[in-house]
């Protein structure tokens, strides 16, 4: 998936000289996850450069640059480190268009690796998507595979509003079904790991059905898509797995159609439970599909604790926990 991200950036830098990349260690070195490798060499230090370690500064500078007329695509080294820039993101980037009656805009993309699964402890594992979803004026995208990552990142950069682009770091090197004790499958063995070199884009706000099923709808995104698929396989339950791809704007139509068909719903994410994006999804399903529901909707999420180091896999909502939920929702009257 790293290559897909790199290819999206490469394509966009080639097509549009307004695309500028900066962030901590993204220049000469090419980023701690190597997503920007080779870009400084190819496009010069004025278009891809290292920044001081100051997330508020990175986002604030990007806002000014976007208002000038550029299309900055900045990297926050880990999503866990966006908090110092949260004011600039939520009170500034998200508000420029509204405040100025679209006289000024902030077309910018903020990439950040998200989620756990690499023994990163509480400050390299967080999934803060709900904190963006609650704030009006931000779009939030979370791809689950290289093909989508490239197409969605290109769409994000081309979008005329600020977009948060969360890259599930556990997926950088291959799809991940939640069984951390099994060997890693590389992307080369997955059909969605096949990424065309050229420009293409995938519209924001559209979910994808990853697995069709008749009995229960599973709403997931990022890493959890594979966990959901695995849980369906392992339990033998005929689950329909929806990959949201975009958290906001969300694709209510796809969700609603599926739940109306299945009558049951399980929601999974890695973030802490309370007020997570799962609570919004559960509310949407409750509001829109109430009369179709045959059982209470279930959330399977990270616990309401920091992401611990040693117990990463007990914290992670793996296939066993998702499988339990699937069984439970099927057993309910």
């Amino acid at each position: 998936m790293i290559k897909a991200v790199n290819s999206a950036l490469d394509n966009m830098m080639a097509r549009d000289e307004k695309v500028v990349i900066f962030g901590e260690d993204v220049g000469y070195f090419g980023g701690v996850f190597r997503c920007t490798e080779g870009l400084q060499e190819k496009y010069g230090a004025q278009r891809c450069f290292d920044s001081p370690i100051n997330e508020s500064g990175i986002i604030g500078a990007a806002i000014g640059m976007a208002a000038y007329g550029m299309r900055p695509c900045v990297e926050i080294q880990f999503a866990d480190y966006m908090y110092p820039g949260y004011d600039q993101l939520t009170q500034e980037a998200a508000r420029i268009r509204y405040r100025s009656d679209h006289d000024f805009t902030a077309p910018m993309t903020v990439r950040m690796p998200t989620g756990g699964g690499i023994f990163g402890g509480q400050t390299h594992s967080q999934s803060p998507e709900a904190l963006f979803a609650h704030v009006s004026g931000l779009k939030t995208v979370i791809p689950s595979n290289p093909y989508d990552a490239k197409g969605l990142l290109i769409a994000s950069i081309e979008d005329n509003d600020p977009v948060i682009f969360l890259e599930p770091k556990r997926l950088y090197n291959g799809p991940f079904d939640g069984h951390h004790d099994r060997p890693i499958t590389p992307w080369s063995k997955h059909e969605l790991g096949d990424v065309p070199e050229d420009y293409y884009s995938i519209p924001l706000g559209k979910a994808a059905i990853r697995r069709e099923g008749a009995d229960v709808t599973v709403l997931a995104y990022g890493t959890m898509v594979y966990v959901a698929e695995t849980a369906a396989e392992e339990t033998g339950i005929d689950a329909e797995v929806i990959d949201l791809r975009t958290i906001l704007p969300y694709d209510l139509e796809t969700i609603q159609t599926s739940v109306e068909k299945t009558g049951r719903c399980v929601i999974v994410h890695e973030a802490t439970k309370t007020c997570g994006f799962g609570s919004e999804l559960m509310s949407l399903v409750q509001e829109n599909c109430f009369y179709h529901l045959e059982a209470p909707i279930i959330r399977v999420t990270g616990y309401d604790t920091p992401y611990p180091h040693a117990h990463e896999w007990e914290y992670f909502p793996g296939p066993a926990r998702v499988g339990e939920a699937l069984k439970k929702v099927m057993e309910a009257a």
Partner: protein
Amino acid sequence: MSETEPLSLYVPEPEFRPGDTPDYSDVKIAAAGEVDRPALNAKADDIRELAYPIIRVLNRDGKAVGPWADMLSAEELREGLRDMLKVRAFDARMQMAQRQGKTSFYMQCLGEEAIATAFRKALKPGDMNFPTYRQQGLLIADDYPIVEMMNQIYSNGADPLKGRQLPIMYSSKKHGFFTISGNLATQFIQAVGWAMGSAIAGDTKIAAGWIGDGSTAESDFHSALVFASCYRAPVVLNIVNNQWAISTFQGIARGKAATFASRGLGFGIPSLRVDGNDYLAVYAVSKWAIDRARQGLGPTLIEHVTYRAGAHSTSDDPSAYRPKEESDAWPLGDPVERLKTHLIGLGEWSEERHTQTKAEIESKIVQAQKEAESHGTLHDGDKPLVRDMFEDVFEVTPPHLLAQRQEAGY
């Protein structure tokens, strides 16, 4: 003090509180003409000392003296005077309009008029300001329509910002005035980012950031210095030190521990202080910094030293925390009076012309106000469409927000 004596917390206090008689006679201020004017490309290390004294052009007699003088023609000075008078008259009317309940809130810049008006004149079209709420002078000196400003203040049917923003939070790309934020200091680093954009694009436009003395304590002030220094951004970073941040004096933001200008020293940014109540000095120093930026010589930090003569906003009553007489005792005088005296001394102005000009300006402001009020005030007359409340959150309103708008019936 020995090692075993108990520690205690030092809490800075202003010299004067209500009841005290303010006395600034022991404050040392450089005489007009005293401070050097370095070459544009002077090395930051060589002009560190400029971060301390105050650059002044007009002396006590209203004469322009020293190396920073003689940059403006008599006509330009008269225009400056008119700009300041306009700002002052506008402020007075809007202050009153708020008291009359025509809007919810107002913020004047009484005593600080020279800074924004003179700075604006040193810029070129296309340059961009990232202002705070006290730089209405930037718009007025650039001939932004007074009626539009009032429409915004009234949140009326003709409000260019459709009632979305608090009064005085103007926005105008055309006039190089970035949309004002309610959150302090955020715009300072944005100005740097805009300037970086201009540099990357190979443009010739420069940016100007604005911040108050109190707000220099905010973190984004630091971000701005770090980024401006790092990329030698073509930006002028203006600190307006008007001595007060609501009820909090500049000592809490550390304006006396060292000057605000000296914050630039730790980043190798040339840093100057200027008498903010001296139109000529503000212009000269601003021009120096703007020229540096435009010639690719990088950022400059300017501390404009002034005094907030009025209340912080219409929600504030300064008599609760500072002596009423402090404003008059303030040693740098009134910018309008000082420029007027200078022009009269030059033989380019007179008491009569002044009185007449003031009256003309006031009547124009009254006229503008009538026109604005014909489009409504906050609680009366025309209003922006409620439907517009749902627009411009995104370029294309997404389904969930459309649904909310429809549910709301708009």
